[in-house]
């Protein structure tokens, strides 16, 4: 029997979480790999759709991965009754979910970075962009994955069953608002994007368009929004715990 003691616990948990995500979302990873292969084949065959597929993957793949991987983290366990296992332990309820939330984000960042490297390499090989641009595109894919994931967690922690759907709608509305206001350079535009979806900061990291936003400021805005959605999620867990403590 495998040893489950001491310092190897965290290593074991990281590996087991990775295996769990692979097992649970194998169709997602297969579709992503197939799309990359298709895009590469078309790109190198000189067919124009190849470029669109590769660039489309850079935007949609991390976004969908973020939505799918985080879905049901809390809400599924509340519905199945497994939530009770964490409630009875001598620890705050949020501890178990905080551990998994952090691990999911970490692994999601790794998936986005790996995908970014693959797409960057394809783009450079296919003369779509330079090495610097490829690197920035890969870096921009990380917030594109983490932000929707944080939104899903926020909904899930409040017990919303279709957490990924609600997060998707939030992102769609947010991106639409951000798209409309991204051509303005007003305070109101900045505020809308800060509250809805930080399109300008993500674009500033990717360097896809000529955005005047300072890189440090862009990263700060993305981190603030990530922290905000996470906070909403943990408030949801705290609310559940407070309800249980009242009894």
């Amino acid at each position, binding site marked *: 029997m*495998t040893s489950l003691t001491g310092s190897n616990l965290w290593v074991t948990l990281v590996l087991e979480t990775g295996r769990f995500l692979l097992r649970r979302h194998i169709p997602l990873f297969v579709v992503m790999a197939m799309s990359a292969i298709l895009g590469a084949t078309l790109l190198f065959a000189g067919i124009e759709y190849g470029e669109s597929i590769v660039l489309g993957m850079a935007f949609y793949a991390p976004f969908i991965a973020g939505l799918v991987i985080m879905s049901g983290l809390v809400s*599924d366990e509340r519905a199945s009754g497994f939530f009770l296992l964490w409630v009875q332990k001598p620890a705050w309820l949020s501890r*178990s979910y905080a551990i998994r939330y952090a691990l999911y984000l970490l692994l999601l960042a790794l998936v986005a970075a790996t995908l970014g490297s693959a797409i960057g390499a394809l783009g450079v090989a296919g003369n779509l962009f330079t090495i610097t641009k490829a690197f920035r595109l890969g870096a921009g894919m990380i917030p594109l994955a983490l932000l929707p994931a944080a939104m899903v967690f926020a909904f899930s922690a409040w017990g919303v069953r279709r957490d990924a759907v609600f997060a998707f709608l939030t992102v769609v509305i947010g991106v639409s608002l951000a798209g409309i206001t991204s051509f303005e350079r007003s305070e109101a535009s900045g505020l809308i994007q800060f509250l809805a979806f930080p399109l300008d900061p993500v674009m500033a990291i990717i360097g896809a368009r000529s955005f005047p936003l300072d890189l440090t400021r862009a990263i700060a805005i993305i981190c603030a929004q990530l922290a905000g959605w996470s906070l909403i999620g943990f408030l949801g867990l705290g609310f559940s715990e407070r309800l249980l403590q009242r009894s």
Partner: protein
Amino acid sequence: MPTVCVCRWCPLPDSRVDLVARDITTGYLKFRSEQVVTRASFKVDAGTVVALVGPNGSGKSTLLHTIAGLIPVLSGSVSIGGQPPTEYRLRHGIGYLAEGMTLPDAWSARGMLTLTALTCGGHAAAAIPAALEIAGVDFDLTHPIRQLSKGMRQRLLLALTLIPLPRLLLLDEPEAGLDPGQRVSLRQRIRTFAAEGRTVIVASHDVSSLSTIADQTYLISRGAMHLLEPSDLSRPERLMSLFAPTHGDS
């Protein structure tokens, strides 16, 4: 007089945990009206195995939920080691194998055990071997849970419940899905676990299985809780009369 630390990290001054329920009414608040399930008063000493038996829907699970502090008592009080259930649960943990808990099936048993130990604090990992032994988990921990049989899942759930070896263990239909051999050995292991000064309450509608390990057997029926005599358990006609629903019982 030395002061006693009751923080969540220190063991209870007296590690033997008694459970006392005084004139409690269990049930639910529904649209501000009380749906009373059971009225009861009892005291369970540490090191005791108590069986709760009763027909389906009699309120066994509701009583266990109340003892675990997951639903409030409608009246009366429950204390565990002198503390209210919610406070005790947060500080020391309560092992509660609730009926109908479903494991996330893409995880492996090893992943779930690790996560449970880390949730309780890294020191809880020391309890994993004992928890596996008590629960009778003797299968490969690396397989995904979806590949485990119903009995294996039940044993794994029990092992997760037993981390970090709680002083109070509540089991709701723990033998569900187990084969006869596993059932017999589980009863023996529960008995041994309680002999270490722990309190175990087992709810089931199977009287014959529990009578072999229980120090006390309570029947929950018709909204009340009755202590059964050992002689009641050996007389089928007596059991029939106790379990038979009266007119209007659900």
